[in-house]
């Protein structure tokens, strides 16, 4: 694009505009990393808690969820490093980042409330219901239907986790992570995002 003073026709102007706008797509690779990290981390934590509760006499099996604390730091450090290396920052990138930061803050407050009532073992359905929100909206922002459906599945699994009783309920959390985070994350790669 060297001949910058060349007179353009209206159609040529329009072509330049649409071509350039199409090149400023949001960078979704960061989002994919977080979906995979949290998807696997929560699958492991929830299955470990379930197994510890049913097969051992370990007190407070919910303590496996403390693994999510280093997960938060890994997410934040990864996001900071990748963000500072990003050459272009779109408005969608900004909305996406703050949506998840808002979720993180809300989840921390929820942990404080539930922890204060000493009911940490019951937090699963509430976190699922909450996490469905940014998951669904992330799907809307990047126009990726599997992630939107993933968010909807998490709302459904939050109801299952709450009402299905202690034998099936805990398995709703890993199931929700598979449909809500992991499947969309693997599909993102295959869809060329």
């Amino acid at each position: 694009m060297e001949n910058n003073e060349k007179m353009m026709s209206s159609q040529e102007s329009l072509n330049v505009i649409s071509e350039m706008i199409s090149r400023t797509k949001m960078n979704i690779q960061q989002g994919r990393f977080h979906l995979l990290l949290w998807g696997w981390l929560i699958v492991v934590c929830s299955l470990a808690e379930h197994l510890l509760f049913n097969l051992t006499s370990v007190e407070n099996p919910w303590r496996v969820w403390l693994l999510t604390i280093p997960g938060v730091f890994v997410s934040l450090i990864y996001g900071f490093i990748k963000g500072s290396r990003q050459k272009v920052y779109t408005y969608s990138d900004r909305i996406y980042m703050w949506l998840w930061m808002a979720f993180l803050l809300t989840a921390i407050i929820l942990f404080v409330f539930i922890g204060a009532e000493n009911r940490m073992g019951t937090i699963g359905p509430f976190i699922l219901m909450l996490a469905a929100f940014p998951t669904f909206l992330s799907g809307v922002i990047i126009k990726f239907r599997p992630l939107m459906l993933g968010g909807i599945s998490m709302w459904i699994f939050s109801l299952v986790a709450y009402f299905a009783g202690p034998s099936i309920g805990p398995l709703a959390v890993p199931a929700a992570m598979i449909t809500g985070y992991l499947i969309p994350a693997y599909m993102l790669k295959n869809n060329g995002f």
Partner: protein
Amino acid sequence: MKQYKDLDPLLHSQLRLAIISLLMNTESAEFTFIREQTGASAGNLSIQITKLSEAGYIKVQKKFRGNYPQTLCMITRLGREKFENYVNNLKDYLSPDN
């Protein structure tokens, strides 16, 4: 008879229009990103960015990332208004009957 408005001469240039179009959808973009996307030479791009910046259409921020200089470009409110006017006027040329 329909009156056609003149297209903003600052935007009616291939490279400057490309720069503004790229910035419309971004909060900030690095000089190197704009160069990659437009395929322009660094010298030419620099001249056009200066013209847009002097007119107040874009803001240029020079920073350092580690030891390397980094030039960030952002569209201003004026630049956004001028781009929208440009597109509206362009529509008149493209569909003269409306």
